[in-house]
């Protein structure tokens, strides 16, 4: 289970400074912030904007454009099920329905107890050993109902 620091303006400024020398630093900064805090707090946007001399709207535009960037923390565990064609061809639809039913949430949502966030992902490049998933950053392939249930049991904490 990943652990994150609580959001802090000082740390945000520091991370921004560390990446500022890169060519095109915004995405690396956002990735680093998300790695540190688990999401990108709205209050970080004006700080980054000022440091990079761009508008807050530009930063917000980038944060909201990309699927990876979260504007609020995820659940304690994140289960990403591949929903792309190669996994569909290998029984992925039934697995997605099973995960939704077991967790009681639809794709893209977090359980009420904040235990698990269930998300679709469009291709992990494991298409020859499909269906596949990623749980807390770890890849899993050749999923079936039994394997999925054991993943769900593992995040039942």
């Amino acid at each position, binding site marked *: 289970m990943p652990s994150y620091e609580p959001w802090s303006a000082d740390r945000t400024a520091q991370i921004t400074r560390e990446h500022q020398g890169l060519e095109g630093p915004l*995405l*690396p900064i956002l990735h680093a912030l998300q790695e540190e805090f688990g999401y990108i707090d709205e209050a970080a946007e004006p700080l980054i904007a000022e440091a990079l001399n761009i508008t807050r709207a530009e930063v917000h535009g980038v944060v909201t454009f990309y699927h990876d960037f979260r504007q609020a923390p995820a659940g304690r565990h994140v289960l990403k099920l591949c929903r792309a064609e190669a996994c569909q*061809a290998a029984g992925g639809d039934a697995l997605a329905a099973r995960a939704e039913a077991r967790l009681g949430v639809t794709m893209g949502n977090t359980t009420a107890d904040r235990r698990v966030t269930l998300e679709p992902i469009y291709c992990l490049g494991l*298409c*020859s050993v499909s269906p596949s998933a990623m749980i807390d950053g770890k890849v899993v392939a050749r999923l079936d109902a039994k394997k999925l249930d054991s993943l769900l049991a593992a995040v039942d904490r």
Partner: protein
Amino acid sequence: MSALRIYVPGDAAAVACGADEIAIAIASSAAKRKIAIGIVRNGSRGMHWLEPMLEVATGKGRIAYGPVELADVESVLDAMIGDGGDHKLRVGVPEEHPFLKTQTRLTFARCGIVDPRSLDDYKAHGGYKGLAKALTNPTGIVEEISQSGLRGRGGAGFPTGIKWKTVADAKADRKYIVCNADEGDSGTFADRMIMEGDPFVLIEGMTIAGIAVGATKGFIYIRSEYPHAIAVMGEAIDTARRAGMLGKKVAGSNFEFNLEVREGAGAYVCGEETSLLESLEGKRGVVRAKPPLPAHKGLFGKPTVINNVLSLATVPIIMDRGAAFYKDFGVGRSRGTMPIQLAGNLNYGGLFETPFGITLGELVNDIGGGCFTGRPVKAVQVGGPLGAYFPPALFDTPFDYEAFAKRDGLIGHAGVVVFDDTVDMAKQARFAMEFCAVESCGKCTPCRIGSARGVETVDRIIRDENRAKNIEVLEDLCNTMKFGSLCALGGFTPYPVMSALTHFPEDFGARPRLQAAE
């Protein structure tokens, strides 16, 4: 006795099937037995139904076992200690396996064989010979690549040599080489495999590109869904830099070249080259109108070569063996080999590199072994979410850019996804539109609005609402998207939709008249 050399792939497909746990179990079992072993985390050979496929180095060459599960570790280790002895999972010498024996591995020559973390191993297997040749005649590189007939492996199939020449001829204070490793198409994993299994070949290819066009900086834009590839590439770049193969004086020459890995952020459209450049610049991944071409005004407005991983990874062997050698493979205007990725509902999925010209039927039935569900194949999608669905009636189509285009399909990045007869093609058509709607960058109307209307229209057809009329609307909409969109996302989404409608009208409850459209 020297330590037993055991290979446990570190490729993400093998890891997803348990390779990490097996590597740990092998190491601890060997320690308990007091046997000296050395574990190499190689890439994958591409026989993915056998993953995790372990190998042991013996006097008779490497002997493979797979698919190995945790419960098999002790007995497989016994067999390995017995000089690659018998076991129910014994595959034998990998190169002798029909799946590998019938391939022509040029781009993937070293993948699965070498230790991806070792520059020495890379050099021992012919690595950096391409760069050495390139340095003897730097001004001849572009011509050599042009002569080879290499076309962009990302999907568009644009001649690589022409792209390079345009950048080489451009005058600028700074130029860039950008590697598109945003391999978002479902059914494709060749870029991932080469980055995880033979990262130095990509570094060498990009270095040669830099020398050819006068660029000193390169970026590899890797999608965030590939954490293993990001880690391996980053490490390889550090190793190459420390060894003097990157930096101010590449391999002791007067050429400078530096590389940096950048991580994507989950936007499919960033696989489109101009959107990728925007993303690298730190902006929303919104597609740019062309012209200007990236070759004239690319990254940060500077002349930029932007190529797919496979195109760049093929450059070293072309420089090493010569354009004529490479060009000798293939058919028509599709020269060389294509690393084809077999995926979905197949018995033998994996990577199959072969000269252009092999038929779709051979790939699906003879090599892929048909559906693992044991049911008949109904449809095959070639080229990712923007590729057409072909029925078995078109299995005689040769793998060749032009032959697929002639049948209203495309090769794309050469992913082949197989579906059995339980697939509902109206649902697949709906998915194609839905995917486009979610992933559209929003810049052009045909893609942004067309895809949303497309989902609604397919829904109406599925619900049998004014079916004939709505099929006409869908055809018209697809036409608008195909010819009015700025990039391939909106422009190619009609391929899966129209091919589903054309070849599988029964799934849409439509009249057979649609078959006449073929």
